[in-house]
């Protein structure tokens, strides 16, 4: 059985490298235009080339999103754009508009993945996309386990499903609340996440129906760790993690957890320590997560009425820039307040988690300090076990 692909988002070149180093088999990125994260940094053509070179050196893949819904003014741009993307060496494009699929197929040899923006939920639609030349379909997050299995059993095409991350409240492509409330076009990458706003709910006579918290469309996040073994057995081609605008720490954490779980399942037939893994994932996103539609349960247990009270936690302490094997001194760039006595976990792509207590912190001028307060401050800390560049440090919870 071919091993399932673990597909990670990457908002920039650094996150692309981190995602691949931490175990993703492929990354999806946004190019200079025509993607659904118009307000992310996104990649230049040169950065795409560099990312592809890095990925291919590890025998991994890069997919580029070209998934906005076209307006007239963009029609003439698509052909040249996808040709340029092809020249960067990418492995596939992720497309929503079928007319764009035709342009890609007519003008390049790129594989075409149908974006979840198309909200594909049934066998007939998947068959259609196969017939017009798509090589993979990213199913809508509204699909149940039964529906996914029926599609896999009935259409010979690669199927990709989401396993982790934020959820849209509505069917992707059918929500333009952002357009109406903020004039920002949701289907062209401008979504202002109205589904996370609070509203007053009124009855038919326009009298308020008041709960303890305000009405919202907000959904809990998706987390499929507990069902990962089922999903592998179903024959899904690719597991997708949501979040091209997520941080380096988030990507490294989520990718490494799922990487370990997938590898463990292929090796032993089971995934252990799920509760602890879920705890790390929950703290990383700082939001509740559930399996959502997979089990055909999308009742109030999937809704999120926290009144936007979640605040980002300070778990991510720093990133290892360098390690001197002889002196055992690590050079660390601070990301959140570090202090002497902190019990931390150091994790990286090439070793198990190291639990360690910081006893001695030295600043750039050689002074011994008790706290590291400044963002991106460089410090040196003695760590007895081997660590390396791109290892990440989090507070032990």
């Amino acid at each position: 059985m071919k091993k399932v692909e673990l597909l990670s988002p990457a908002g920039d070149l650094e996150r692309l490298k981190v995602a691949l180093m931490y175990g993703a088999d492929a990354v999806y990125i946004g190019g200079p235009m025509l993607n659904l994260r118009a307000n992310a940094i996104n990649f230049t053509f040169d950065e795409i080339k560099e990312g592809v070179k890095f990925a291919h050196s590890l025998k991994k893949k890069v997919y580029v999103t070209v998934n906005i819904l076209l307006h007239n003014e963009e029609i003439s741009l698509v052909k040249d754009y996808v040709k340029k993307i092809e020249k960067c060496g990418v492995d596939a494009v992720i497309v929503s508009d079928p007319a764009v699929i035709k342009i890609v197929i007519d003008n390049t040899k790129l594989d075409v993945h149908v974006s979840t923006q198309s909200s594909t939920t049934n066998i007939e639609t998947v068959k259609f996309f196969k017939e017009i030349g798509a090589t993979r379909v990213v199913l809508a997050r509204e699909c149940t386990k039964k529906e996914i299995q029926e599609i896999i059993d009935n259409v010979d095409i690669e199927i990709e499903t989401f396993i982790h991350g934020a959820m849209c409240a509505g069917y992707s492509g059918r929500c333009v609340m952002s357009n109406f409330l903020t004039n920002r076009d949701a289907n062209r990458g401008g979504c202002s996440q109205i589904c996370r706003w609070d509203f007053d709910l009124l009855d038919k006579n326009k009298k308020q129906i008041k709960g303890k918290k305000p009405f919202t469309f907000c959904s809990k996040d998706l987390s499929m760790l507990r069902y990962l073994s089922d999903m592998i057995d179903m024959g899904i081609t690719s597991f997708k993690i949501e979040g091209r605008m997520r941080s380096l720490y988030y990507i490294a954490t989520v990718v490494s957890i799922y990487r370990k779980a997938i590898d463990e399942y292929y090796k032993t037939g089971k995934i252990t320590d799920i509760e602890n893994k879920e705890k790390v994932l929950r703290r990383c996103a700082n939001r509740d997560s559930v399996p959502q539609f997979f089990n055909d349960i999308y009742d109030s247990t999937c809704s999120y009425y926290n009144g936007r009270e979640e605040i980002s936690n300070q778990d991510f302490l720093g990133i290892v820039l360098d390690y001197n094997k002889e002196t055992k001194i690590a050079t660390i760039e601070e990301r959140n307040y570090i202090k002497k006595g902190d019990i931390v976990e150091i994790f990286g792509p090439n070793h198990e988690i190291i639990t360690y207590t910081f006893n001695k912190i030295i600043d750039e001028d050689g002074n011994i300090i008790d706290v590291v307060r400044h963002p991106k401050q460089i410090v040196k800390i003695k760590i007895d076990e081997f660590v390396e560049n791109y290892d990440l440090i989090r507070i032990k919870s």
Partner: protein
Amino acid sequence: MSKLLTIPSSMEEIEKTKNIVDGFIIGIENLSVNTNMCISDLNDLKKINKDIFISINKNMHNSDLKKIEEILDELDNLNIKGVLYYDIAVLSLYKKKKHKYELVWYQEHATTNYDTINYWNSFGVNYAYISSDISMEEINLITKKSKSKLMITMFGYLPMFVSKRHIVKNYLDYFNLKDNSKLNYIEKENNIYPIIDKKEGTIVYSSNILNGIKEVVNLNVDYIVLNSFDINLDKFITIIKYFKNVTKENVKEYNENINKKFTNIDEGFLNKKTIYKVKK
């Protein structure tokens, strides 16, 4: 000259308006969203001697496919003009047989350019329903370059959200609240948005009513659509008459008359382009 269609809310409305409009868009029980009236007995359509378009436009799951096929066959026995679809499954199933009616590409927020309209036309989809999220400049270019016959909403509340989730019910359940409204509203900063939570999921409409009568006199489409959703029937009949009789000479007066009838009315995106990149 464009024909006038409405999205009626009741058989009573159809009876009262059938002599002034050219046709209706009607939903099918369990297969439609954003249509105000869904019929369970297709034979009811035989009584209406007008251009009838049936909207089969929810997101389809595997369990819906058999029902769609049956309905597409049954519709051959009725004198309908076309079927509006959102999910490509409807097109795929339609193409398996030769049917007596046309298909209308109705992915309401996706019909934003002429190239994709022409793409669907190459599959035999001869109608497209233009998005309400784009400007007149964009609409006019679509009318010039599209091979398909076109329809567009020019009056009424506009659909802006469809979900499989029961978002109102979930809120009521979570906080142990009771309410039996079939139509609710949500309010933000004095704007009130209709929200319906029904078997197929949750639908939300715009807070303002679109009034596009100013643009209709110069608009080259096959069907202008007026939506009666949540609008008083007498007022709606008056609106239909304005749209039916509008000319270049009276458009200013008619526009003002319509605007006076509502406090929450505007031109939608007809003269306001959306943005999507908020920083350079």
